[in-house]
């Protein structure tokens, strides 16, 4: 590794990604954005995410999807068929000069091909390998499979998403949109890889880290888990049994989403002092004097009525005006942003949150960069778009890419 500003935090770090779909590719993407040199190994059929449906794109033709593009910029794509001997040898060769391998192959996949950690470290004693498995190793579920759907539901996170419902037996718990469970597994793997790298830099000792995607998702519900451990009953999903504090899927206390002319605004004037400032902002409407609403606990007990009054008021206003006026009074409130709103948000623009990457076929697109600014290096490092399948085979093996 060297410390040149142009190479970010991880310049010189060599990473092999044997990743499919979201979790391992997301982990390696972060390393690539921080400056690592990432080679992505794909099977001849390509990463699964290349086939993801993208509106406006005929994905299966060219192996391009918005999901693939979003997770694989700044990587090199090498196609290897790990079922044939020649490519197994190529993989072993690449692994010899690698610092970190990130992979999410099915359990036993690498062992069956004699490409597992014990084999790889024979020629690379300080190798770090990060394996993401749905349920980790060494427990009753280790050979079970799980995608985002099951990880979200089994980890307890789906029970809180829509908030209480009238009939929990006909309205099932809900997973969030996107790929959050897989991304949590990938993010957790990135943290583990940086801890393992520290150990290696200090001692020269590599290691094999098993990340359990299920446990990574349980970690996202860690407060509920602690509450359970100390005997607190879990929140009910049944609206009738709810103690009046949850609206629009918000987590607790007084807070929720109000309709506006131009969308929605999310507000939470939960403390009495915040509520006083909120009422002042609304111009002291008569109903706010009502004893149903004049203390926090009263408001919690009359949430439905309260929301009717608040909505009547907000419906004639802009989400931006409400949030700005509220924030000026130190009340937590935010516009509910659409993607379009985010792309033209002045705060994000000021912070240069989006970075432009030119794609040869799709042109210039805005990608999220990284959610942090560092003073002594520039990250993310300048990025190339996600590679075509096998584009870099010719670089590594003197052959023509497919």
């Amino acid at each position, binding site marked *: 590794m060297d410390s040149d500003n142009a190479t970010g935090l991880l310049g010189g770090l060599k990473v092999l990604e044997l990743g499919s779909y979201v979790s391992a590719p997301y982990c390696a993407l972060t390393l690539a954005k921080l400056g690592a040199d990432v080679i992505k190994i794909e099977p001849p059929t390509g990463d699964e995410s290349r086939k993801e449906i*993208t509106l406006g794109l005929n994905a299966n033709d060219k192996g391009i999807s918005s999901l693939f593009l979003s997770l694989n910029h700044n990587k090199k794509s090498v196609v290897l068929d790990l079922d044939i001997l020649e490519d197994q040898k190529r993989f072993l060769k690449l692994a010899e000069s690698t610092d970190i391998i990130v992979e999410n192959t099915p359990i036993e996949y690498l062992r069956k091909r004699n490409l597992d950690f014990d084999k790889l470290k024979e020629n690379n004693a300080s190798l770090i390998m990060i394996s993401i498995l749905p349920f980790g190793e060494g427990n009753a579920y280790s050979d079970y499979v799980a995608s985002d759907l099951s990880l979200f539901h089994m980890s307890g996170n789906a*029970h809180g998403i829509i908030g209480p419902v009238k009939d929990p037996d006909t309205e099932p718990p*809900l997973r969030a949109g996107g790929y959050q469970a897989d991304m949590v597994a990938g993010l957790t793997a990135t943290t583990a890889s940086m801890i393992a790298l520290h150990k290696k830099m200090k001692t020269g000792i590599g290691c094999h880290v098993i990340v359990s995607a299920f446990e990574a998702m349980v970690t996202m519900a860690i407060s509920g888990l602690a509450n359970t451990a100390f005997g607190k009953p879990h929140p009910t999903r049944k609206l009738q049994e709810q103690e009046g504090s949850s609206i*629009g899927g918000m987590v607790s206390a007084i807070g929720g989403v109000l309709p506006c002319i131009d969308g929605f605004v999310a507000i939470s004037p939960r403390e009495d002092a915040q509520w006083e400032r909120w009422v002042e902002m609304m111009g002291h409407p008569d109903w706010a004097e009502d004893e149903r609403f004049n203390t926090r606990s009263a408001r919690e007990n009359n949430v439905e009525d309260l929301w009717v009054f608040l909505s009547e008021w907000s419906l004639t206003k802009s989400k931006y005006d409400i949030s700005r006026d509220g924030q000026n009074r130190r009340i937590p409130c935010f516009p509910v942003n659409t993607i379009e709103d985010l792309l033209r948000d002045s705060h994000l623009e000021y912070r240069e949150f989006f970075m432009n990457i030119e794609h040869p076929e799709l042109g210039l697109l805005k990608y999220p960069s990284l959610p942090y600014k560092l003073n002594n290096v520039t990250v993310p490092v300048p990025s190339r778009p996600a590679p075509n399948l096998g584009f870099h085979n010719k670089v590594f093996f003197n052959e023509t890419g497919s």
Partner: protein
Amino acid sequence: MNELPLSGIRIIDFSWIIAGPTAARHLALMGAEVIKVGSSRRPDPSTKGSPYQVYNQSKEYCALNLSNKDSKNIAIDLISTADVVIENFAAGVFDRMGFDYETLREYRPDIILLSSAGTGHTGPDKNFVAYGSLLQHYTGWNTISGYGDGNPIKGGLWADPWVGMELSMILMAAINHRMESGKGQYIDYSMAESLTASISSSILDYQISGKLSEPNGNKSLNKYPHGLYKCLGTDKWVSISIDNNIQWNEFCELINQVKWVNNSDFNTVEKRKLYELEIDKVINDWTKLQEDYDVMHILQAIGIEAAPSLDISRVYSDPSLYESGFLSNHVFADGTEKMLPTLPWNFTNISDFELSAAPNIGDSNEKIYLDLLGIDIKIYKDLIEKKVIY
């Protein structure tokens, strides 16, 4: 060889509530020495809840009243011994206390300062007051979640534990970079940007097509069957996802629907979706007579994805979490014991974490002020008297 991966790293943790303490927690369990600093004058609001016992595992905790001006030199002395400082006050607060990065550098030139705030520390909205639950709406998470009926719902996972995991990642990357370059780092972290960064494919979708895929609940664009099915008992559900035709055929045999096995009217996702109501009813009729865990075991035995949709108390009872050691025993000062979560990974060939129960404020006062900083015992007692150490 058996030293923990992060032994030798010292972190002074001024952060409170959830995200910051969670970041420090991951590193404390992996062997870093984390010294939490706070005051009884304005205690960490999380202290009164049970989750505090998890957020602060394996840490030291000393009391220091930062609103008293005599505390500043002590804080600086402490920071001078440290590799990393973490804070997550509202933007600008830590600076006004006199602990801005430039000042800290004078005492420890290669210090790494991690500052986490709702919308970051620069830009027109840097002073926005934020709760994690509101940030989920602000950051676009909710536009991709829900049943597609247009009403915003809470868009996803709870922000704070997610942010905590990312904070510990970027801290470790900065520490590793310092080992090579000798350079410290100021890390200006925005919770809001962290959430927005995780919906990158939707952001590209919108730019490519001018629209977004409708939120589709538990369904999938690429797979069917894929969703939740009712099981025995109130609010008991199981997720099932069929990945390919081989699985579809095996599944149909298992649920006694031989008419669908190798049937060309049902051999693609698109064709099966035409019969969605009928298929879902048949699957529900099969699942509703069974325990959710049983459905998981039966289907997973033939390689098909299935899992119970658990509430958090049932997660806490799941046997795999004990088997793997994720839930481990903690012994508290009063002798009571609890099984609490540790870390979601296993470093297979080195010892990977050490566990001690969360401290109370002031537990480490003598260890830190007398032993580490070498403050004279009389002065120490005076500082307690004057509520500087408080």
